[in-house]
């Protein structure tokens, strides 16, 4: 098992390097650079003076150096844990990310836990009551849920929230609580603000988990070994939860691998719409403004998490499934 893991980790390294180069190139590829887009924005705000400092700014940010040189310098520092600075936010990428990882994970973990803990039992119920009224109802609801993009739901909830409470529930805190010490009222305020993003994302997420669970469980329930279990007098409850569900977790565990990266890039658009202080929000802005080190770092981080997640999923599958373990 240990050798299996080691082999997988070593296999991941070249891919990671490729993703790093790819991430940087994609950020660099659009015409112009951060300075160009900065000046255009300044024009938009009526500041026509900005164009004068164009060259000065470019050399200050080292954007006048060739791409490969900047890449090598950056990657060398990257290896030492220094991800460079954001042009736009005037802060180190490391600080920006560490400020935002807390809120990001709070929302994503909450939605993840809720949608899986609702989706799995509902999926199992649906599959074990195939073609019943409840199953038909749940399947239809799942379909509708899968068709509801989270950011559009978030917008609808915003309107609804405003009409019900008269508050615009964007961000994670009401202005009154900013920079205040923790208190019960503050916690309640946080929960209130989390309600919209969590609800919006949970609906699609639950629908997805439910559908996968139902489909796979139905597939497993039709297998021969289920008949064997019934024929030897094992109670139905045990057949479902101990045998069939365990066998149908395969695709969900594979999906669990992708969840790791999802934790910091899921619901990107919802984050923007709701002005959440998350990594997703800065990623979009950094992409739009060609804030290369910030956007590049996040893209590489996502790639890294994808690979780690896949690796963890493979290990979990091997741990669960003897057919993989003794390949």
């Amino acid at each position: 098992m240990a050798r299996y893991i080691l082999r997988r980790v070593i296999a991941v390294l070249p891919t990671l390097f490729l993703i790093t180069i790819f991430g940087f190139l994609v950020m660099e590829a659009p015409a112009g650079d951060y300075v160009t887009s900065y000046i255009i924005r300044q024009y938009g705000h009526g500041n026509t003076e900005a164009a004068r400092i164009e060259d000065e700014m470019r050399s200050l940010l080292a954007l006048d150096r060739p791409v490969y040189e900047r890449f090598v310098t950056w990657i060398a520092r990257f290896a030492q844990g220094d991800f460079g600075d954001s042009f736009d936010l005037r802060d180190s990428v490391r600080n920006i990310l560490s400020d935002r990882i807390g809120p990001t994970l709070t929302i994503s973990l909450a939605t993840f836990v809720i949608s899986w803990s609702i989706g799995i039992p509902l999926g199992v119920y649906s599959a074990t009551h195939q073609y019943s009224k409840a199953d038909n109802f749940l399947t239809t609801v799942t379909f509708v849920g899968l068709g509801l993009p989270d950011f559009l739901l978030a917008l609808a909830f915003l309107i609804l929230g405003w009409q019900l409470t008269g508050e615009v529930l964007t961000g994670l805190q009401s202005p009154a609580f900013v920079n205040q010490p923790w208190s019960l009222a503050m916690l309640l305020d946080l929960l209130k603000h989390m309600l919209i993003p969590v609800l919006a994302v949970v609906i699609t997420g639950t629908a997805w988990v439910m559908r996968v669970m139902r489909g796979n469980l139905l597939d497993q329930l039709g297998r021969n070994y289920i008949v064997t279990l019934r024929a030897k007098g094992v109670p139905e409850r045990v057949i479902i939860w101990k045998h069939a569900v365990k066998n149908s977790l395969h695709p969900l565990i594979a999906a669990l691998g992708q969840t790791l990266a999802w934790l910091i890039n899921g619901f990107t658009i919802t984050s923007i719409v709701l002005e959440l202080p998350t990594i997703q929000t800065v990623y979009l802005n950094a992409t739009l403004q060609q804030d290369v080190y910030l956007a590049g770092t996040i893209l590489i981080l996502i790639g890294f998490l994808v690979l780690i997640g896949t690796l963890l999923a493979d290990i979990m599958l091997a741990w669960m499934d003897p057919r993989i373990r003794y390949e």
Partner: protein
Amino acid sequence: MVATGDTLPDSLVGPDFDAAETAVISVRRLMWLRFKRNRLALIGSVVLVFMYLAAIFAGFIGPYGLRETHEKFPASPPLLPRFVDEEGNFSLRPFVYAMESKVDPATFKRVQTPNTEVKHYLHFFARGTPYTILGFIETDIHLFHVYEPAKVFLLGTDKQGRDLFSRIFYGAQVSLTVGLVGVSLSLIFGTLIGIAGGYFGGLFDDVSQRIIEVLISFPQIPLWLALAALIPPTWSSVQRFFAISIVLSLVNWGGLSRQVRGMVYALREEDYVIAARYASASDWRIITRHLLPNTLSHILVIATISIPAMILGETALSFLGLGIQPPMTSWGLLLNQAQHTRVLIQQPWLLTPALFVVASIISFNFLGDGLRDAADPFAN
């Protein structure tokens, strides 16, 4: 004891029973029967037929043109036709009151008040703004219309005073086709690579599989954003439309290709393909005569199932301002104005294009599911 109505004639039971021919007919029939029985899939297809018709006849359905602005009515809430007038009299023919803009003496704000003295009746199949259908039929007949100075805005207007109801159908033209174009591109790319990989195997297969693996596991939205940012801002609105389709298909082809490859892998070992190979048929002939036809219905199912992701992708990109650009419009672009919370809560009607997005995604999901069940009757 005969269960179904149609008993096989005895001649069919004998040795001269042509099993193969009967099987082909009954598989097709079975597919249709199964599809027809799936109520949700039927509802989905009906909704989609209406949506595509509405997109084609966008100019006819909407009372105003795509770029027609009503300067006096920026961000106007819906102005709906009414059947009952101020005095409570019922009129079977719908009408509207013209709005007059006045300055409120107390607050000094401009307010719109209806002039209840004159009723402006709705005219059906009336002449209005000229438009073209499918790019070549020029006409100016609208489903309904009301003459100036009265206005009818079923879904309100945006901040430039453009009628949202009319624009939604023009937006449908883009939103409903970007998915089809994108899926066709993915299909061509994915099918070629999938069939090649599945049929030839070897190094080509290995390399393409590795690439697909990374592509599939990589989250879509960052890829969309990164690729959409590559589109030069100077491109025209039509060029952008195709560029967006390409971006969407670049992110999407991997999954499709993988499924096609799986099917070809299985088919490759089938007797008739092996037979064709022994008969030294060329690879090209085997692929076009045997593999493609046999994977076609499955490929179409997979394509249908991937359309919703494309629609959603276009909506998301345009919503963020990275997708379709004016003068074209799309549902995502129409929603772009709703991005700012303060605007949205003042003008909640700006969110109505979302209903169309959701309806089309759900309908495609229903349709795709019905087709999959129909194409694979022995799936469960």
